[in-house]
Each structure stands twice: as C-alpha cells, then as structure tokens.
C-alpha cells in the first residue's frame, strides 16, 4: 500500500514538473532515469523500515500501532550517527508516561542520520509516527535482510493476532 502512495506521488510530481519553468528543480532530477523500488517492512516489535534500493538506506520508524499503545511520548533517545548496528540491537528508547520502551534495529548497517527534531518535539512521534516522526536512517549492510521482515499484510495480521 505504501508503494502505491509513493508511486502516485511520483507521477504527480512528473506531471507538475513538465508544466514548471526549467529553473525549478524537479524532484526527479536526481534520478532522472532510475525507477527505484521502495519497500516498507515491519518487525514483531512494531518498528517499520522504509527501504529504498537506489540509495541502500532504510528509514526507521515506529508504527502507528506502537505509538497508540505507547501513549504520549515525552522523550526519544536515538543512536549516534556513525554507529554500526546489527539487526535486533537496542538503538534507542521511547519514553511515555507509561514506560520506557526500547527501540531495536530492524536491519543491520550504519546509522547515517537521526531525526534531530524529536529531541525538541518528541510529540511528533504520536502525530506522525511513520513520516515526520521518523527515528533514524540506516545504510543497510545487507539489503537482503529487508526480506526477513514482515510485509504490510503480515504486520496487520500480527497486530490483530
């Protein structure tokens, strides 16, 4: 489902780009001829990772399901940029009134970027857990690992189980 959203967003951009004057940067310009595959996968522990096979980078988030069971998030602890992590390593924590919950690396690789906004606005994790409230970006050391995670249907079943 997420793929579909991304694809339709791209085509919308494409249409707009053709109508714009040439000096406006098109989001497609960076990858003019590459159609990348973006995959979203989930862990049992309610992390999600959005993997782009063109960059080899996965954006790590907690799921909407996780944020709703956590309640109001007041603090988010993230790994340092450059940290090399293995799938399943504890890479941070999310604190709500209820409890501290560990965040585990959904994939192995190197932390390339963290969402600094969360240090001042931890509530973003409740408002937009899977988009604006992303946690960190991990460059995967093994892209195949992504296939070991649950897809959308499997995750939905996991939540309802």
């Amino acid at each position: 489902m997420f793929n579909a959203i991304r694809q339709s967003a791209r085509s919308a951009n494409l249409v707009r780009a053709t109508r714009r004057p040439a000096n406006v940067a098109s989001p497609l310009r960076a990858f003019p001829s590459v159609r990348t595959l973006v995959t979203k996968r989930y862990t049992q522990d309610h992390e999600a990772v959005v993997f782009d096979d063109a960059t080899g980078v996965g954006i790590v988030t907690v799921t909407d399901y996780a944020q709703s069971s956590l309640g109001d998030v007041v603090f988010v602890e993230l790994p340092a940029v450059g940290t090399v992590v293995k799938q399943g390593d504890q890479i941070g924590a999310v604190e709500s009134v209820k409890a501290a919950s560990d965040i585990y690396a959904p994939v192995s690789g190197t932390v390339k970027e963290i969402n600094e906004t969360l240090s001042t606005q931890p509530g973003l994790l409740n408002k937009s857990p899977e988009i604006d409230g992303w946690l960190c970006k991990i460059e995967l050391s093994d892209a195949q690992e992504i296939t070991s995670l649950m897809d959308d249907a499997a995750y939905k079943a996991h939540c309802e189980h």
Partner: protein
Amino acid sequence: MSSRILTKTLSGTVSQATKRATSSRVRCMATESGELRKTRLYDFHVENGAKMVPFAGYSMPLAYGSVGAVASHHHVRKSAGLFDVGHMVQSNFLGPTATQFLEWVTPSGLAALKPYASTLSVLLNETGGIIDDTVITKHAEDAFYVVTNAGRRDRDLAWFKEKVAEWNKTDLAKKEGGVEHEVLEDWGLLALQGPEAAQFLQTYTSYDLKELTFVCLRFPDECSQISIPPSETTEVAKLLSKGPVLLTGLGARDSLRLEAGMCLYGQDLNEDITPIEAGLTWVIPKARRETGNFIGAEGVRKHLKEGPPRRRVGLIVEGAPARQGAPIFHPTTKEPLGTVTSGIPSPTLSQNIAMGYVSSGFHKKNTELLAEVRGKSRNAKIVGMPFVPTNYYRGSA
C-alpha cells in the same frame, strides 16, 4: 492511602506492555486472569471497556475504553475519578484492648484519634522496617477499621494472626479482654478522588444511597473511600460513576500518587526501610517516639537519635525520565549515593519526577545529583514533595 495500590507487578506489566503491547499480550493476560482473584466489580469493569491486567494477584483495570492514562490523570486532577480498590485488604480489630493492641503493632497515636477519624500508619517488624503501610480508622476505643495492601496480604495476615495470639496471652488482655481480628472478605472498596468528588458525593449521601449500606471515609487529599458490603458493591459503583466522575484505572492512579509524593509499597517502601528513612516520621507522635512501646521501636529510635543513613527524596530529572532502579550519583566524584524507586514523566508538570533514596547529607532541597538512565547521566535535582499540591478538602470529616 489514595494511591497506595500499585506494586511492582504493575510496573513490570506496563513496561512490557508498551512496546510489545500487542493484542496477543492482552489476550495472554486474559488467560492468566483465570488464575487471578477478581474483585466484586470485575464484570462491571469489563462492561465498561476496561483493559484488565494482573496486579497484586488480582485482575484489575489498567484503563477504560479509549481514554488514555494521561487524559484520565488530567480528568481526576480537574474533576473526579472513581477507582476500584477492592483488592486491598479490609480488616476490623475489635475488643476492649483494641486501642492498646494497635498502638503496639503500629507506632501511631490511636488513643488520641477522634471517632471516625483516620490516620496513615505503618506496620513495623522487630527491627523497625516497614512491613506495610496502612490507613487506620477509629470507630470507637474498641473498634478499628484497617486497610492494608493487596500485595502484602499474606505477610500482613500472618503477622496479625501471630501478634493477636501473642497479645491475647498478655496480662492486660486477660484482665481487660482480648482482641479479635476480622477480615472483610469480598467487601467492595471504592476511592472517589478529585476536586469535584466531595461535592458530587454530597448530592448522593442524603437520599439516593439511603437504601444502601456503606461506610464513607474522607481523606485530606481530595479523596473519599467507600467501603461496601459484597452484595451492594456494583450498585454503589454504578451510582458513583455518573456525572463528572470517570472510572479510572491503575495507570492514572500511579501517576497521581507519584505527583502527590505518596509511597508505593514494594517500590518506595520495604522491610529494610524504617519510617524515619522513608520520611514518615510524622506518622509517629512525639509521645510515642519517647515511650517507644511499640514493635520496632528500637530501630526507629536509633534512626531518630543518630539520623537515618539514607532518606527518601523527590527528584526532578532532566531529559529521560529516571525510573525504578536508576542509580543516583554524585555529580563530580561519581560516588554512588542511592537509587530511584519510582519515576515518571509527570503529566501535570511536564517534567520528569522521581522519588528515591540517597545517603544522608545529600538529601537537602536543590542538591544537584546525577541519575543514570540507559548508561547516560542525567541531571537530577532534589525538590520537596508533593510535586503537585492537592487542593485540600476542608469539609467535615
């Protein structure tokens, strides 16, 4: 009393529940609850959409419907909430020497207590450690109503049995009459708390509840406790959960009690801690500190005389909340000074509050210390408690 209901079980449950709060876990709890005790209100909770969790051997409501713990917390702060505390152990101590007996098993001044007045108290072991905290209500010189923690049920009841037997062998008991201990098994106990609670209760006591039997106790922390015979518990709960009053679960109860600076047995109190260390010296009247004719007096008086080695303090922690078990350090020498026993992000203050024990000398207000959370040091400053003051209800008791 209003907040002494949580034990370690809950904190364990909640921390596991969050990240892995999948419905499978919820279902797993439901299966477990088959072996758990139920209060009279179990069906009432389920009908009202409660998420039931194991707590102190009981299946108890964590929260109701889609009302989150924080929203529920705020509602009790500004209006009123009803809590089922029927898992707690309700006892009567009856007999001509009931006052003297209870002044032996607790350090409280009960002879001076007026009829139908209540006091926070502690049961102490032989060395002055706290077996349990309790609220004692005097009905008369020879009749007291005592509420103790569900999590300490076995320990307390065995202790009472042993001490009553011992007491009834004394010359005083033989001469003037002994003491009988009666447990009010299966009775309901409700706590109605919040600034609108007293007024709401007022609207009922005259007429609507006249057909029902119940005992209502008022506490100075905007809290009333209502003890109800088994057959009428659900009916009273239905009546009292109307109007501004919302059913409130264990989640909000824990954050409310911690903001009020109240101890939770099993976390903030245990048998190695004396009431002096726990900052509960005030429960022991001056005359009783001097006479020392109660169980555990020696340990208590030693700490009074020499000063306790450690003290319970309130902390405000920067960054991540320091929760139960977080070590406390000196900011420059890094010397270990103590441990956090309870901690949460306060919904009212939007700051991380915690209580814990630190070595004497480091317990003064505004002392800057460090608390360690997941390997990182966080600034922790000692502050007075309660963290959030309650609007004291000054109506007739």
